């Protein structure tokens, strides 16, 4: 069977790329990219073949998917985990995003990292990440997914800390890994609970057992909650969201690939993959929706005031991931995956654009020292504008269709509160994105005068991926999401989610453009449009010959208007003080606890040991005095001893 070879090769090729580059990369120097890029290109081709076969249900995929078993990984009696891969339509969708964005980021990095001393190391790590991410979406058992889950964490650690001399980068890498591990503990316990309940870790077999109604060792909602904990960590949802903004310390291609388009989606993928479990735990679904939508508004509020271009995008990513979890929570499974795909492309694009901007202004990331760049770097500007329009949910770009579906389904499934918050977030999203556009590209230039003359558009290796990513950002919605709720994607993913939707008692109502759906459509697009106009008024643009003076003072006025707005402004600026809280809890208080335990170890535990030793020594020294060397003393001792013995004989025996 040809797919028995093709599917493993998808992951094996970048693995070979990583291994070879790790060994010989240093010697290849500036040519080190050929092998890793070639491997990812080959992997992309194979992924397209496999994804196309799966989505058209042709050949061996006709029966809902096709799996390959590789070897008995952990043969421990009844606990027998095989290493195996499985491709169904959900995996196919993820494969498309992961390998396409992955390939373009690899190409982009040729330009972006061209002058970096660690060129080969960067490509080796990127390939390592690709292997890990591909295994994550291909793995057919929860434990295989967990392996990849940890491996993407490792690659993320290595890439965030890529510029290891920078203390902030080193700290961010460590923070990302440790915060992720908090979620991983939950995921690991979830896996243990699944095994204890079903006796297998194969995803399909265990899910089948879990939903069969058979008695379980661990209640289903607990399992769902534990698995969700893992998703919260990897997808940086509240309260484990703190690592993602710091992760922007990594090189920008990394931010685009790992921290926007692929790895952070792993949590969404996991919950979608386990949809039969979640579908039968409605109370957990509410938690998922609540965490998601709360993260969405929390992150959007922080994005309002950040001045680092990448941090705005990072908070935007948190916010959009929140949308996806909200979608999962309200049972809009397909919409969640739709948004995942659309977001993967347009956020990947936005990040690469931001990298292009940073490149143009010589490693400046602060938007207060940008402005007026749009004529200088037009390819970057126009592609980024496409990304910004897409994420703001303006039709007919990709983000509109997916976001509209999420909000529509939230409303129609009775989660009015999710819809209401999501509606507000839609407006906020459009605002902070166009604030970013305004500060970066519009108005007067605030670029360092020394850098100003050297501003240049990026080389083709960087600009071509931008153009290529702009295409799906525009067309993806029309291509697979139209007509709404009945597009190609819905048909592709129906086999994956159908059964759960029925179990949840959801009946797909026809999309009514001249009805509720139309009203929601107008509302969402309306608030986004208003937000864009407001941002445009504040930050100014000369567009289509229409010149307007930027009104920056509007923003200043609003944030200082009264006590509430001043508080909100400070809260946003300080990221709602989560980092400070964590610092207090884990560094200061946690550190004290650890120091106390160490003191306890030295003084009490070891003190007891040394105390017993000292006691023995003292006793010995004390008793030594008896041995005086004088015969008279010994004679006295013997006499006393005889007396005692005789006396006790008389007292005890003689009676």
């Amino acid at each position, binding site marked *: 069977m040809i797919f028995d070879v093709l599917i493993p090769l998808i992951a094996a090729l970048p693995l070979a790329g990583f291994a070879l580059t790790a060994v010989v990369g240093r010697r290849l120097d500036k040519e080190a990219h050929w092998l890793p890029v070639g491997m990812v290109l080959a992997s992309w081709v194979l992924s397209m073949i496999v994804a196309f076969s799966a989505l058209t249900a042709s050949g061996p995929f006709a029966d809902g998917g096709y799996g390959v078993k590789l070897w*008995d990984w952990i043969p421990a009696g009844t606990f027998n985990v095989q290493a195996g891969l499985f491709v169904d339509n959900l995996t196919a969708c993820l494969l498309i995003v992961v390998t396409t964005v992955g390939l373009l980021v690899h190409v982009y990095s040729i330009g972006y990292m061209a002058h970096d001393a660690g060129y080969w190391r960067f490509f080796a790590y990127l390939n390592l990440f690709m292997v890990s991410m591909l295994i994550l979406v291909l793995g057919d058992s929860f434990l295989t997914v967990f392996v990849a889950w*940890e491996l993407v964490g490792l690659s993320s650690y290595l890439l965030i800390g890529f510029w290891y001399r920078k203390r902030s980068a080193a700290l961010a890498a460590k923070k990302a890994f440790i915060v992720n591990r908090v979620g991983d503990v939950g995921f690991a316990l979830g896996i243990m609970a699944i095994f204890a309940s079903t006796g297998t870790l194969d995803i399909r077999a265990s899910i089948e057992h879990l939903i069969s109604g058979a008695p379980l060792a661990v209640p289903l909602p607990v399992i769902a909650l534990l698995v969700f904990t893992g998703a919260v960590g990897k997808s940086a949802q509240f309260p484990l969201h703190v690592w993602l903004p710091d992760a922007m310390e990594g090189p920008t291609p990394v931010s685009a690939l790992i921290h926007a388009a692929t790895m952070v989606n792993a949590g969404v993928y996991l919950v979608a993959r386990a949809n039969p479990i979640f579908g039968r735990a409605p109370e957990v679904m509410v938690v998922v929706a609540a965490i998601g939508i709360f993260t969405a508004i929390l992150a959007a509020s922080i994005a309002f005031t950040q001045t680092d271009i990448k941090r705005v995008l990072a908070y935007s990513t948190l916010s959009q991931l929140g949308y996806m979890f909200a979608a999962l929570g309200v049972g809009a499974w397909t919409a969640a995956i739709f948004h995942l795909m659309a977001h993967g492309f347009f956020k990947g694009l936005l990040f690469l654009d931001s990298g292009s901007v940073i490149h143009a202004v010589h490693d400046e990331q602060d938007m207060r020292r940008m402005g007026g760049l749009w004529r200088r770097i037009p390819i970057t500007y126009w592609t980024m504008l496409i990304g910004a329009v897409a994420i703001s949910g303006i039709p007919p770009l990709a983000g509109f269709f997916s976001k509209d579906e999420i909000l529509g389904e939230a409303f129609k499934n009775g989660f009015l509160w999710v819809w209401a918050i999501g509606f507000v977030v839609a407006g906020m999203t459009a605002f902070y994105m166009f604030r970013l556009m305004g500060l970066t590209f519009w108005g007067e230039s605030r670029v360092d005068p020394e850098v100003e003359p050297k501003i240049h558009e990026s080389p083709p290796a960087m600009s071509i991926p931008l153009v290529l990513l702009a295409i799906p950002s525009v067309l993806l919605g029309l291509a697979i999401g139209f007509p709404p709720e009945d597009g190609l994607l819905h048909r592709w993913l129906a086999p994956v989610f159908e059964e759960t939707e029925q179990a949840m008692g959801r009946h797909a109502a026809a999309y009514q453009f001249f009805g509720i759906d139309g009203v929601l459509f107008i509302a969402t697009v309306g608030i986004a449009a208003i937000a864009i106009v407001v941002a445009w008024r504040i930050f100014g643009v000369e567009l289509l010959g229409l010149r307007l003076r930027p009104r920056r003072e509007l923003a200043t006025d609003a944030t200082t208007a009264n006590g509430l707005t001043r508080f909100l402004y400070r809260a946003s600026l300080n990221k709602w003080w989560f980092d400070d809280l964590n610092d207090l809890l884990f560094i200061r208080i946690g550190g004290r606890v650890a120091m106390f335990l160490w003191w306890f170890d030295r003084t009490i535990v070891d003190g007891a040991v040394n105390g017993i030793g000292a006691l023995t020594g003292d006793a010995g020294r004390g008793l030594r005095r008896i041995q005086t060397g004088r015969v008279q003393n010994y004679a006295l001792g013997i006499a006393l001893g005889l007396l005692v013995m005789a006396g006790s004989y008389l007292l005890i025996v003689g009676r």
Partner: protein
Amino acid sequence: MAITDLPLVSAITFVPLVGAILIAFIPRDSVGAIRIAALVTALVAWVLSLFMLLGFLPGRPGFEFVEVAPWIPTFGIEYKVGVDGLSAVLVVLTTTLTWISILASFSPIQTRVKEYMVSFLILEVGMIGVFVALDLFLFYVFWEIVLVPMYLIIGIWGGPNRIYATIKFVLYTLVGSLLMLVAILATAFAYQSGHGGDWTGAFDFESLRAFAATSGFADTFQLFAFGAFFLAFAIKVPMFPFHTWLPDAHVEAPTAGSVLLAAILLKLGAYGFIRFAVPLYPSAAHTWAPLIIVLSLIAIVYGAIVALVQPDLKKLVAYSSVSHMGFVTLGIFVFQPQALQGAILQMVNHGLITGALFLLVGVIYERTHDRTIAKLGGLSAPTPVYAAAFGFFVFASIGLPGLSGFVGEFLTLVGTFQVSPWAAAFATSVMIWAAGYLLWMYQRMFFGEVTDFLHSVGHHLVDLRPIEVLTLVPLGTLVVVLGVFPGLVLTVVSGTVSSVLASVDSASAVNLAFWQ
């Protein structure tokens, strides 16, 4: 003649002794010849042990390669050695790490090389002997033999505070093992009186186990005998709260001494639990298990948290050992097949990974003569290969899947979860702590700018030398291979696991009501 007819186990055990005797005849000035002779001896033992592992038939619960010779017939004491899956794996671990340790000592040890190498080879005799002895008296003899060379290794070639550390190590261990001797003798007496005064087989493990399986040992007797064994083994593992000799011993021991101390000596205690304490006194094991599980859980989390604040590299790794070995004792005493397989795998993995970490700490110590983490920094730039190797083993120790550490820990946790989800949840939290202390250490050593202290070291700060790479490559290879194919160990030890659990399952906990 089949290979099983050769006295292979004795050969592996005593090849190092022969080597040690031969080295005694080499003039002490011929340092090179002494080193080569020691290395060759260790390699011969290693090859023989690999041969044994290959010829070993996996999955069978009984002992293979058994050799018996009468020793003290009056009391039924025999020279009886043999291996099952567990022993075979641990013997190979021992022989592997011994030659690596000897190789790693070539450069750091420049004084009294002859005595050093002889000590190491005799230490190997003792360690292998413990893993292959099937007679309790013989086991005790080997157990105590181990102490002597380690006492010398720390006491002569150790750091500034070596005398304190080595005396503490020896006395502490001795307290436990003397109680164990009493328990061994009491067990033999109980067996002898249960067999009409016949001493035959009174020290033989197999006949004692058969006797135990027929409820031969009284419940109260079991409680005390197990208690004595427990103390001996718990100190050796070491379990909380008997662990405080370990950081002291590690800090003072020379690099190779630390390697063998962590990799093999700590396994002696865990091996003792699996081989002797549990099968011989299964009812008492049931009674004691809850306490031991609690102590293991404390060790796992406590060791990790205390490791978080260690200023000294070696102490940090020492406390991480306390944490990792907690998984081993946890896995043994939940009496569950996956957990026990995980515990055994964890023993092997801890040997490989922690052994490698001590080698790596030795590398920086040899160059800077300092192990204070705060003085290090930015090592990635001047020593990239060292940074990569250190990073590899740090992530192995963190339990990154794909490397061997993960499988052992995860199997232990899966097994524990089925017995007590809360215990498993508590132990799983170590995933966070372990990442914390190890990445904290790694960041401070390798990231950031090169510190002034390291600048002052100057040209001594060189990257890994070929000989150091040679010591690390086999360990790294095994860590990857066992991470991807843990079945290599799991299938070999499956026979041991089922036989140990069979003895426990047929027993029930001692009814403590007799106290009233």
